[in-house]
């Protein structure tokens, strides 16, 4: 049950997408999202579909993994589709019952909106599926390095992020263990009303917090024992460097973005 979290779950397999520089993938995701909002007209969506399909194909990640990520936005998706259908009055009127009016334009808009949202989620899920959390924070740290000039503690934020990400699976496992240990003592986490359920969480949450604090303190100790002192003057074992593939990827991304802008201007 707690294992259904796709965001931040790396799919370990070797593919050209996996090997790209994390900065390229971050920029690529951003460009893809911009392109989706620029997109207008059927052709633009067809090209976006082909682009996304090709990237998924090259990444070798099974489609089912991305679809799983969509579960979290089903309600949001339904909302936006329903609103679009009922409130956009544009083009031929198809149905009219009382105050409900459904138009062809509304239907088309709703469909575009749904596709846009789905692609948005798939695009960003694809990035997290093909990039290890560590690479991701490395990429973020480097891309946002310019913000150090205005005294934003970029390195510290990146470090906190990567530690937090690293702790997610550990804490999930820990939760599972404590839950079972309490169930072995007759605890019941499922039945009862809301208040009873909240009360039943105490035997789970208290040990979980204690263990999180203990782990944090151990980690801090281990980092200090290895002379960690923050980002200044710190070098990396594997510094990020753009490869030939990254240049090709940037080329393709730019071409894609320009194409989408052109289609909007023409259409």
């Amino acid at each position, binding site marked *: 049950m707690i*294992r259904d979290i796709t965001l931040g779950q790396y*799919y370990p*397999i070797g593919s050209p997408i996996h090997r790209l520089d994390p900065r390229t993938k971050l920029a690529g995701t951003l460009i893809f999202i911009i392109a989706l909002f620029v997109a207008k007209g059927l052709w633009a969506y067809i090209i976006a579909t082909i682009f996304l399909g090709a990237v998924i194909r090259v990444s070798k990640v*099974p489609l089912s993994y991305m679809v799983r990520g969509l579960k979290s936005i089903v309600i949001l998706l339904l909302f936006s589709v329903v609103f679009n259908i009922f409130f956009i009055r544009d083009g031929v009127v198809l149905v009219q019952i009382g105050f409900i009016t459904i138009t062809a334009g509304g239907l088309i808009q709703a469909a575009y909106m749904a596709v846009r949202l789905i692609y948005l989620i798939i695009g960003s899920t694809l990035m997290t599926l093909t990039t290890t959390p560590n690479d991701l924070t490395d990429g973020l740290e480097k891309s946002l390095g310019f913000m150090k000039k205005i005294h934003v503690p970029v390195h510290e934020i990146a470090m906190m992020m990567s530690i937090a990400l690293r702790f997610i699976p550990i804490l999930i496992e820990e939760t599972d*263990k*404590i839950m*079972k*240990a*309490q*169930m*072995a*003592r*007759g*605890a*019941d986490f499922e039945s009862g009303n809301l208040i009873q359920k909240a009360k039943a969480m*105490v*035997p789970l949450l*208290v*040990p979980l917090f*204690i*263990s999180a604090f203990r782990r944090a303190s151990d980690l801090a100790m281990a980092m200090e024992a290895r002379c960690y002192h923050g980002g200044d003057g710190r070098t990396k074992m594997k510094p990020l460097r753009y490869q030939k593939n990254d240049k090709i990827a940037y080329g393709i991304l730019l071409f894609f973005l320009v194409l989408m802008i052109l289609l909007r201007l023409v259409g």
Partner: protein
Amino acid sequence: MSIRLEKIDYIYEPDTAFPVHATDHVSLTIHDGEFIGLIGHTGSGKSTLIQHLNGLIRPTSGKIYYNDKDIYGDGFSMKELRSKVGLVFQYPEHQLFESDILSDVCFGPKNLGLPKEEVERRAKHALALVGMDESFYGLSPFELSGGQKRRVAIAGVLAMEPEVLILDEPTAGLDPKGRDEILNQVKKLHEENQMTIILVSHSMEDVARFASRLIVMDHGKVQFDGTPTEVFRHYKELETMGLAAPQVTYLMHALKEKGWDVNLDAITVSQAKEEILRVIKKK
């Protein structure tokens, strides 16, 4: 009273890219009053297997019977099973959550829906069984030593008055004194309260000393099942599984090679002592 497992198969994350076969068609019967040592290297499926015994995880396929009743059958009360089959996890002190020790031990029996007096009686009895007297009742778990915390956590399970007690490496991370205290208390529970014990351990010495039956797991399968003496005769095979026989067994084999006529079946230090003395006297 018995627990019977029939072809228990358990697969972790069956529909992902990385399915793991944790137990592979395990069939076992655990009889009343046995003291079982369960050994196997890390990842051999021991912990998965014991979680099946009180219904914490459901096998992917296979059946589990408690007193000949299918525990996933209609009308079977899981709560009752969990009160009869007590499971103490590894590092059980991590599950303590109440502000004082007595209330924490009360958690189990309280969940069984017993009246308040009975809950307290059981908690106090369980604490006495693990050697914690009244002076400890009001203390916070944080004020205790590692060994004491663990004994309180074990009392938390004992307070449910189980008939079968399963302990997953109860001595991990304890000093020799804490280890002996816990193992001797377990032995006492077995002898005086006729409790069925399943002890998961990495210490061959410990299982040789206490268990009357040894089950060896490897790659999710039961490889050996017999008395400690029988199982440790296979010490060469045990080594290929990342396990070993007690040190004493190696000593006996070394003595035999030097021409001493000792019985190779000695597996504890006291048995070995008797054997060596016997041979010396004969000379």
